[in-house]
């Protein structure tokens, strides 16, 4: 037997046991990318390094054998640094957008490509769910949003961006006119009360998400109806008031109560609200600094000073957002603030660390080259961007929406949730720019329609798929081609992916630690 120490605990293992297996016995989780039980070791990613403090050496746990006298540390500073460095290096050559640029530019981070695929596929219920995961008032925003998302659409490089905003409106309108419009499942009642002050886009959104999270929300506004400046400052032609009413109606279904004609000073003060409610969300729009001061809040140059990620003010349990913290009239941004404030308030009320909505790691391709456009166009429908035949105000018909939505390039990753590279990048604080290469590798994508998609740029050369096809005796299989920095995975004789992965496609896809190999039809995750 081999006797060693792992994180200060003594353990005995049989000769020939790897450090990874030894750690498993102690229920220690070691990160791995290239390793999968049953398919041997390749020892390539080096994420699984642990430190033997007896020799001072770092060694890959998946393949290093336990030896008597070893003193292994699995989370020491050198170990975490090495893991981070390995991830920095892997990310430095990663060619792939975790999420599409349109989603990242959208202040609400709506999962736009997914919505487009759902519209294209006629799955309207899923489409509105996707929209409402981030945007509480899409029918409103679909009429007034300047659509910053479309500026980021990669389709623009080929001809013109996808008509995202109108498609979102199409999804929202379709939902509102449905027999049973979508109402999110409300979390169990928390018994906590939240006051939302201001019923503009920020307040409406905050109320929607806070209500859905199980809190009892009361929205105060000086006007008699919700909608704020959207109702008063935008012409009814552009934004008919009944659209605001319809979306408010859905918010009410989440247990939200509206108290109109309620004025600051006369009807409420921050102190009274704090006494009556467990948390206060302030979104009363652009506010005079003196008034901010009278509320006992700190000011920055532009509005109320808040923590940028959580929207917490200096006063416990009080959150502020929208026009109140930064001037400007971008409703979608205020709406995004509303959702963030709801999430922060929820964390606060549950006694969790207040972080706001999780900010995920993003791998970004950045600018694409003209010769890469055809690579991206493979999965998209042809044709120019189209306007609704009956005019913008009328919106898309269903066939129009479907054709337009198909123009999406699917430039977002198919495995944003299951990608372990992304997961570890977050865990170890790795970044792509630390060792960013001078020239990024070309964008590549092999698509078997309805079958396998292979994106070379996301491959970490772990060779799991090579080992799987070998073990499962694929007649063609996959192999390493070339070597060194330029090594890549491919099929011999330039065979297609279908030929290479006759019986092992699903196994390879499930094993692939990144989004390099995926089923074309995959739709992952909910955030």
């Amino acid at each position, binding site marked *: 037997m081999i006797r060693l120490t792992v994180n200060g605990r003594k353990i005995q293992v049989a000769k020939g046991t790897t450090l990874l297996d030894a750690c498993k016995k102690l229920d220690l989780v070691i990160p791995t990318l290239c390793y999968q039980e049953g398919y041997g*070791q*390749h*020892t*390539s*990613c*080096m994420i699984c*390094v642990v430190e033997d403090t007896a020799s001072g*050496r*770092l*060694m*890959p746990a998946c*393949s*290093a*054998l336990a*030896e008597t006298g070893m003193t292994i540390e699995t989370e020491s500073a*050198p170990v975490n*640094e*090495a893991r981070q*460095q*390995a991830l920095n*290096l*892997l990310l*430095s*050559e990663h060619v792939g957008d975790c999420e599409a640029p349109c989603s990242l530019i959208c202040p609400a981070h709506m999962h736009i490509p997914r919505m487009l695929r759902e519209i294209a596929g006629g799955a309207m219920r899923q489409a509105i769910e996707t929209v409402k995961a981030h945007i509480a008032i899409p029918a409103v925003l679909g009429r007034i949003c300047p659509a910053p998302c479309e500026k980021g659409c990669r389709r623009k490089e080929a001809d013109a961006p996808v008509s995202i905003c109108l498609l979102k409106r199409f999804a929202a309108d379709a939902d509102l006119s449905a027999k049973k419009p979508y109402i999110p499942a409300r979390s169990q009642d928390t018994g906590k009360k939240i006051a939302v002050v201001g019923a503009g886009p920020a307040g409406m959104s905050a109320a929607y998400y806070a209500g859905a999270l199980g809190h009892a929300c009361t929205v105060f506004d000086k006007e008699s109806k919700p909608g704020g400046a959207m109702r008063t400052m935008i012409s009814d032609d552009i934004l008919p008031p009944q659209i605001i009413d319809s979306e408010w109606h859905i918010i009410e279904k989440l247990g939200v109560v509206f108290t109109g004609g309620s004025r600051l000073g006369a009807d409420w003060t921050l102190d009274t609200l704090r006494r009556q409610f467990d948390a206060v969300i302030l979104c009363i729009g652009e506010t005079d600094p003196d008034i901010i001061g009278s509320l006992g809040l700190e000011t920055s140059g532009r509005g109320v000073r808040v923590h940028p990620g959580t929207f917490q003010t200096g006063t416990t349990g009080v959150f502020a957002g929208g026009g109140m913290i930064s001037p400007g009239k971008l409703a979608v941004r205020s709406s995004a603030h509303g959702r963030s404030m709801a999430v922060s308030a929820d964390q606060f009320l549950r006694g969790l660390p207040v972080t706001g909505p999780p900010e995920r790691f993003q791998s970004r391709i950045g600018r694409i080259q003209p010769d890469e456009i055809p690579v991206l166009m493979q999965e998209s429908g042809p044709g120019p961007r189209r306007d609704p035949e009956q005019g913008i105000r009328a919106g898309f018909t269903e066939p129009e929406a479907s054709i337009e939505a198909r123009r999406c390039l699917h430039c977002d990753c198919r495995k944003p949730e299951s990608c372990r590279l992304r997961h570890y990048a977050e865990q170890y604080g790795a970044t792509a720019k630390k*060792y960013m*290469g*001078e020239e990024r590798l070309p964008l590549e994508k092999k698509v078997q329609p309805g079958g396998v998609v292979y994106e070379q740029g996301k491959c*970490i*050369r772990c060779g799991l798929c*090579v080992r799987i*096809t*070998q073990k499962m005796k*694929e*007649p*063609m*299989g*996959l*192999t*390493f*081609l*070339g*070597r*060194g*920095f*330029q*090594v*890549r995975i*491919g*099929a*011999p*004789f*330039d*065979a297609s992916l279908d030929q290479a992965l006759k019986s092992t496609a699903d196994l390879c896809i499930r094993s692939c630690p990144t989004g390099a190999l995926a089923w074309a039809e995959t739709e992952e995750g909910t955030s």
Partner: protein
Amino acid sequence: MIFRPLIFAVVVDSGQETTMTEMHTESFDPEEMERIIRNAGEKRSDLIPILQAIQGHYHYLPAPVLHKCCEMTDITPAELFGVATFFPQFRHRPAGRHTIRVCMGTACHVKGSERVLDAFNRHLALKPGEDTDRDRLFTVSKVACLGCCTLAPVVQIDDVTYGHVLPSGVPDLLRDFLGRESGSSVSGKSGAFTLRAETEIRVGLGSCCQAGGSGAVFHSIQETVAGLDTPVSVKRVGCVGMCHQTPLMEIVLPGRDPVLYARVQIQDVPKIVQAHFKPVHPVLKLKNHVARWIEDLYTDAAWKPVTRYAIDVRDKPVAAFLGRQLHISTEFCGILDPLDLEEYEKHHGFEAAQDCYVSRSPEAIMDEVIASGIRGRGGAGFPTGRKWSLVRSAAGGPKTVICNCDEGDPGAFMDRMLLESYPYRVIEGMMIAAKAVGAHRCIFYIRAEYPLAVQRVGEAIRKCTEAGLLGDRPFDTDYSLSFSIQQGAGAFVCGEETALIASVEGKRGMPRIRPPYPSEHGLHGNPTLINNCETFATIPWIFQNGSGSFSRLGTEKSKGTKVFSLAGKIRRGGLIEVPMGITIREIVEDIGGGCADDKAFKAVQIGGPSGGCIPASMADTPVDYEALLNAGAMMGSGGLVVLDESDCMVDIARYFLAFTQQESCGKCTFCRIGTKRMLEILDRLCEGRASAADIDKLESLAQAVKKGSLCGLGRTAPNPVLSTLRYFREEVEAHVEGRCPAGKCKALIRYRITDDCIGCTRCAQGCPADAIPWTPYKKHEIDTEKCIRCDNCRQVCPSDAVEVN
């Protein structure tokens, strides 16, 4: 400069198209395909020899033949492609009729091989990414090291080697090569031999040769030949490109290798001619003489016929070159005919093996090796005796002894020299090891770039087998022993023992984690002893002279002698064998005669891509495994390149990192991507685009790669960079400021013509970029915008009027 292996063209989509179209225009005879494949093997482990055979025939790997190979053998397409695209030796695109291999070894690098390569590309009008000219006459390739470091820069075209190549000499060189081909000579491709029909003496009468006095030499030869009764034609030939060695004289005998003499003086002519054509008694002696010259031609002392000749006559420092050395693995240097078995035996050859086979137990053999204190000559210095006893005591199937001659380090050619000159000694060392560890199978793993070594070793094995030394009953004992040769396929990483084993098994040459060590789990999972060629070459001496004689030499922890390839900016380069403990200063100054051209000695690069630079200020560091490690270098396999004040240390660090980056197998993240990112930073430094933060980034990355890489290649790859940062940080920082103090980095220097210009126009005539207007009798000017920093003008200027700053 980033090396771009050409093989990748086949796997990228556009390249594949090319292959497909070309495939259809060529027809492949099925029977011929079958014959080639069948003759080379059928097992998975025969994959590399099969691919080598296919390429040997078609000059690349045509897809139909690869299909056939998968049909005929149990090798899968995935296995085949994995291997065929791993080794740089294999081509997937049709090649030109002749292959030009430009040596990128360290010695060649410091003497301007990049410029030579540029000159070939320019002359053949190759665009970036192309390697073959439009007429498909020449394919230009880079080779890590041809192991002819003293001839640097070196270029090989097919079987012809050109030394001291100047960029400006490239057109003449190609003309010369094509002239040889179309002339009366018949070239056959039997290894390195070039067969010619008639006996002739050729004298270089190119312009440089004439300047060197070859006209007078030519007349002297004619006179001497007239007195012989053998018909010999004396022929004038054009420039052969070795202008530093003029006058040149080549003796071509039917059926033998041509012998080339450099720096021939008139008074030497009769002696040289008589040595070849006048019968000398005993006949054997003549044979040996010629064989030795032949050997010298193809080995590193290729210019030794001259050097050695000079010893007898005049040059004193050259005697010192020999005198300070101690020959153990190179014993009887200059005396033994490499392939004369009888002669080797007369010099006590195989006595040690006989003693071990007849009278010693394996334990007794091992005790002797342990007592000698010898450590592995491959670089890391693991005690040889301990390695042997690990293999001896390992349980498992049939054991194998492998001689690691995959000498890929740029700037190292010890293995090549040992194999070409002392094949019997290496065989004897391996025989002793086989007995000691209980192995019955021995394999030589030799680089394919060393065709003569492969040929000599093959011949030596054949002769030993015929003589009964190998086979079923060596020395009438019942210990059967078989020897074979496996040729490498151009991957430096295969010098790492687990990668070497993978490639012998017919797999991609990728290292795996150790332990288990090959001593337990080696070839096909069985215990395997892998030692470096030099280690084996030292073993017979230890048994002949006793372990005590060996362990008395050297330092406390480093015993015996070490062979080095001494090259670079040195007056006398070549292969040397010195006792451990000798200082670097003694090697450079006493043996090497100091730097050439009266330049100041700046540093030695020792240990190649795994080693580092030791500055002149630390020249008293002894040659000792630990002392070199402490100094930030490494014994390595023994490349020792001397650098002078005109060498840029950042450029040297970049050069080595470019090498390891290119040679990375691509398995582990740290080496695959880490070395690439380090190289990018070094590129920025050399091009004046780096920031001060880049230096810190480089250092932290170097540490990460050193600690995190899987195998020795990656773990040592940062050493040249770290030693440069340690000893030459100011020089690195100067590059951030846009200065290259040594005046080497192209992007940071300018060429200027001084008032010393005599208006001879030679610079203007030679400028490949038309950057110098032709102004006879007037001071010339260089257009910096057009200048490509090829250095031609400076080299051709007769009045040293070209200044670099």
